């Protein structure tokens, strides 16, 4: 069973047993966390191999020329891109179905994910730009949050999935988990309190066992984040004694 240590350039690919589902991941990657949430929620047995994303192993680029996590591998089948991985898993492992049955609902959810990727990009810009540039990204972020708030309110339930968690909840969650962590240590220029349904959702989601199992350790995450800002990402931030 591979350890949590990330594999880098020059490493050997850990052997994959026939019939075992492996996910190539990175402990702090929100995209990879999407796949881990789905795997965990659906109780799909799997093993995790973490990748050093700054110095990728050559063998990893053979499997995924885009070099990104998450990547799934089982026998000779490889799937990558987080949304594609999640949809694939939901189809191949039909228990605890996460994708809505209704095609229109599916379409609306995918549209929300599209708007959300804009939000992710604006949020990253905001976090990495100097204070004086913040206003423009900030307005876009607020507009996006308003949209998510409307979407969520229209669902008539605590979750984007309505009364139960669905795929869209897991696709969005990793970034909100990080926002909550940042909010405790950095004054964010927006407040989730302004979006009551979203706010409630951020309190409900951590009650979901899959979310708990896949949760980030805030201290480790902040250590990792600091290391990326310093230009030397530490993918193997040691577990603290409290984790």
């Amino acid at each position, binding site marked *: 069973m591979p350890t949590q240590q990330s594999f880098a350039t020059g490493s050997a690919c850990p052997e994959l047993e026939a019939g075992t589902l492996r996910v190539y991941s990175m402990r702090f990657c929100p995209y990879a966390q999407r796949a881990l949430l789905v795997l965990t929620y659906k109780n799909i047995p799997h093993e995790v191999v973490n990748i050093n994303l700054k110095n990728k192993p050559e063998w990893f680029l053979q499997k995924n020329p*885009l070099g990104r996590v998450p990547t799934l591998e089982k026998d000779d*089948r490889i*799937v990558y891109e987080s949304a*594609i991985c999640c949809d694939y898993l939901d*189809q191949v492992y039909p228990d605890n179905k996460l994708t809505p049955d209704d095609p229109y609902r*599916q379409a609306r959810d995918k*549209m929300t994910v*599209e708007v959300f990727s804009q939000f992710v990009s604006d949020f990253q810009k905001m976090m990495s730009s100097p204070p004086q540039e913040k206003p423009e990204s900030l307005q876009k972020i607020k507009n996006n949050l308003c949209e998510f708030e409307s979407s969520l309110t229209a669902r008539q339930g605590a979750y984007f999935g309505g009364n139960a968690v669905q795929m869209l909840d897991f696709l969005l969650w990793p970034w909100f988990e990080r926002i909550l962590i940042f909010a405790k240590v950095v004054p964010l220029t927006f407040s989730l309190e302004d979006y009551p349904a979203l706010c409630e959702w951020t309190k409900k989601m951590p009650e979901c066992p899959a979310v708990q199992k896949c949760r980030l350790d805030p201290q480790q995450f902040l250590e990792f984040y600091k290391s990326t800002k310093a230009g030397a990402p530490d993918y193997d931030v040691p577990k603290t004694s409290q984790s």
Partner: protein
Amino acid sequence: GSTFPPLKAGTLRIYSNRICPYAERARLVLAHKDIPNEVVNIHLSKKPEWFLEKINPLGKVPAIQKDDKIVYESAVCCDYLDQVYPGNKLIPDDPYQQARDRILVEHFGQVTTQYYKMLFGPSENCAAAAETLKKGLMEFDKEIQKRGDFFGGSEPRMIDFMVWPWFERFHATEKLVNQIFISDGSMPNLTAYMDRMLSVPAVQKCRLSTENHLEFYQSVKNGAPNYNVGL
């Protein structure tokens, strides 16, 4: 400044633009599956306010509307149409094949990024973008050999309609930017594929000619996009 054109109950409408490759994806699906539809073309540099307010706040085409249902984003429109109108199914049944086809579209997105850099980016980067574009297309030349007459196999499937619109524009682009990236015989499998696609009825219905595309790109470079080329 225009007003929202009233939509009859039960009519499927596509908000489109004659030269937009993303809208063409949805038009190809509609044509291939023989789905009755009405087209409302949107002027992309002078978008009507009603389009942004009622239909798509992102302001992009394609968008489809029927009664109170609205869908936008080209890939989402295509998937939705395939699910709701089951004849001539375009998405493969096998989940792994579905996933691999979507991954291929993702790879093609890298190709289109280079394409737009070459077309609309600073001219000093044009040759480099063309080189990168060519390398990306080489991968597709290899891939089509594994798959058959079409990326979808023996017949065109969703993957083919998702990538076709840019193949349609390659010859015009080569002329416009004076860079050869496909017409030099270096990718015979892709070239043969492009010829086969030109015989597909949906493509014949939806395509504009190389001359039309060239005329449009020239109008963009001249600062006055002419969305009515070929009319």
